[in-house]
């Protein structure tokens, strides 16, 4: 992929995350902070489909942004074609693993498994 496309994704995911984190914080402020951490309230979040979907999107945005950012740092730290290939595919894999693990949490809580 061309680097400009990757960086458009990087900036786009950052902007998207700012918007969604703002919603996330506003939702926390609709009740007292300590209440927001009550077991029932946390579970209720996941049962509320639009909010659960938003968390899923936020998870994707931040996984992509964070691991691409880490990829950039590592590419600047050391060079070499094998190393760079490892970093590129490694960060894609890390994004996938984190998104899969986070989605599992969102899904299980949403379906009331835990």
């Amino acid at each position, binding site marked *: 992929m061309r680097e400009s496309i990757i960086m458009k994704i990087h900036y786009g995911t950052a902007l998207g995350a700012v918007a969604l984190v703002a919603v996330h914080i506003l939702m926390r402020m609709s009740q007292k902070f300590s209440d927001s951490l009550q077991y029932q309230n946390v579970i209720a979040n996941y049962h509320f489909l639009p909010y659960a979907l938003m968390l899923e999107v936020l998870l994707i945005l931040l996984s992509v942004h964070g691991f691409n950012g880490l990829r950039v740092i590592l590419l*600047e*730290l050391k*060079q070499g074609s094998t190393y760079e290939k490892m970093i590129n595919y490694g960060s894609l894999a890390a994004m996938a693993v984190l998104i899969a693990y986070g989605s599992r949490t969102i899904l299980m809580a949403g379906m009331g498994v835990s």
Partner: protein
Amino acid sequence: MAVVETSKPSEELKSNTKTTGQTNTITLRIARSNPSEGQESTFAEFQIPVQKWTTVLEAILYVKQNFDHSVAVRYSCRQASCGSCGMKINGKPALACYTKVSELNSNVITVEPMNNFPIIRDLAVDFKQLISNHKKMKPFIIREDSEVTPESKEFIQTPQDLEKFLQFSYCIKCGLCNSACPTMATDESFIGPQGLAQAYRYVADNRDKGKDERLKVIDDSHGIWRCHFAGSCSHVCPKGVDPAMAIQLLRGYLLGFRK
């Protein structure tokens, strides 16, 4: 790092300079190394008579003339035009011929080779990569027709057209910007501010048709996106070039803000 030698100017040399102005004596510390012989960096110290107009390059040449001819330093024009004499002077990248000892406000002047370049010997560094990256930017007007054939006319450019790239054409390839750049310090494949500023110089020239070719070259994993807005390149440029701005303007094309 050890001090390997200390030399003092002879009384005769001192009195020669006294006739032309007030003479101070400063300590010039020159970093000396020879990596190909496995010789690590040490500092040689010299006492140098200086006047208020003496440049750092002149102080180094004084050492070569009077104390130690073997100090390796690259220079040519002595007037900030050739881009040969870039080095670290009291820690900051600058042209030795364009830095007066008096403006440094210190009696001890330390000169070291530029960062982010392989050292050849002492103050002389290897420009191979800078020149090769500069060439990759296709630093010439790209278009089918020519203005130099007998039947052709020169390409017209208004003062406003010229203004768009003029400052970037002042680059003398001294490499100070690259030596100040924090990305260059770890990413040896990074094109660097010098090359990127030159890519912009030609992309912004309305006589040029090679924009897409150049944008393709800089849109690489070690290209323009590895700049993180530190701005130290523009801070150290002795010719008033603003590579950091060139990089942001080039990004405008790649992000679709500019056509």
